[in-house]
């Protein structure tokens, strides 16, 4: 009880200069692995992929405005992030502050590549930051 009392008192006194945050953010859903396993590269067609996996997050043209085919992108994420912020007044005109935040984790993704006849060429899985450099934040 005594410890709780001091935690409450100290927290009240520090609330203007100290903040600690935790954010847990889940976005979208990973396609079911068994559905992905039913898609055979070189055989599956776009219609089967859409029927198995649902609507993608994004459709990406390949080559010159999609003349080489297209990729369809499924993405999902679960971000858990702590952040810490402290700010202290030093004098009337100056203050010192320190901020820290855990590393951001981006979308995980599954990318299906198709030829111009909508035949599945290959699938790739991993961080969208690596699979689609420069486009990893396309959803947020």
């Amino acid at each position, binding site marked *: 009880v005594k410890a709780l009392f001091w935690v409450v008192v100290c927290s009240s006194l520090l609330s203007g200069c100290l903040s*600690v945050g935790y954010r847990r953010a889940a*976005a979208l859903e990973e396609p079911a692995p068994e559905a992905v396993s039913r898609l055979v590269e070189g055989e599956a067609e776009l219609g089967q992929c859409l029927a198995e*996996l649902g609507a993608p997050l994004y459709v990406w043209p390949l080559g010159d405005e999609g003349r080489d085919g297209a990729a369809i992108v499924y993405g999902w994420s679960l971000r858990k992030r702590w952040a810490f912020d402290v700010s202290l007044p030093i004098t009337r005109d100056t203050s010192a502050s320190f901020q820290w935040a855990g590393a951001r984790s981006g979308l995980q993704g599954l990318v299906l590549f198709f030829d111009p006849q909508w035949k599945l060429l290959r699938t790739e899985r991993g961080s969208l930051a690596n699979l689609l450099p420069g486009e990893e934040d396309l959803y947020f």
Partner: protein
Amino acid sequence: MRLAFLALAALPLLSGCFLSRSYTNDALAPEAIAALEPGRTTAAQVVDVLGAPAHVVELGERSAYLYEHRKMKRAGLLLFVITLLNEDVRSDRLWVFFDRNDRLTHFGATLSAERASYSLPFQDRE
């Protein structure tokens, strides 16, 4: 006395609880999606029924339209210096693909926006 003190101490801890939700675009109507017929439905008919797409992708002479309704639910807890948040984002999405004559060739739909849920800060979503 001890119980009263604990109750008093707990009151300010609960003062910062909140729930919020936000949406992007209107929900997709399942009956509109069920009416899509590859080989027959045209891009103009899709736009008549579903309105302007959220995104259009040119694929050479072909094209694809995105319709999306996104829902986010957020639960938060503010404890003096500590802020705890849990967010869940889900969406209804429909991609429709057209050939060079703007006739529907394929479509794919995912309807999961309604499954967005509120959870405690450290809790997994359902």
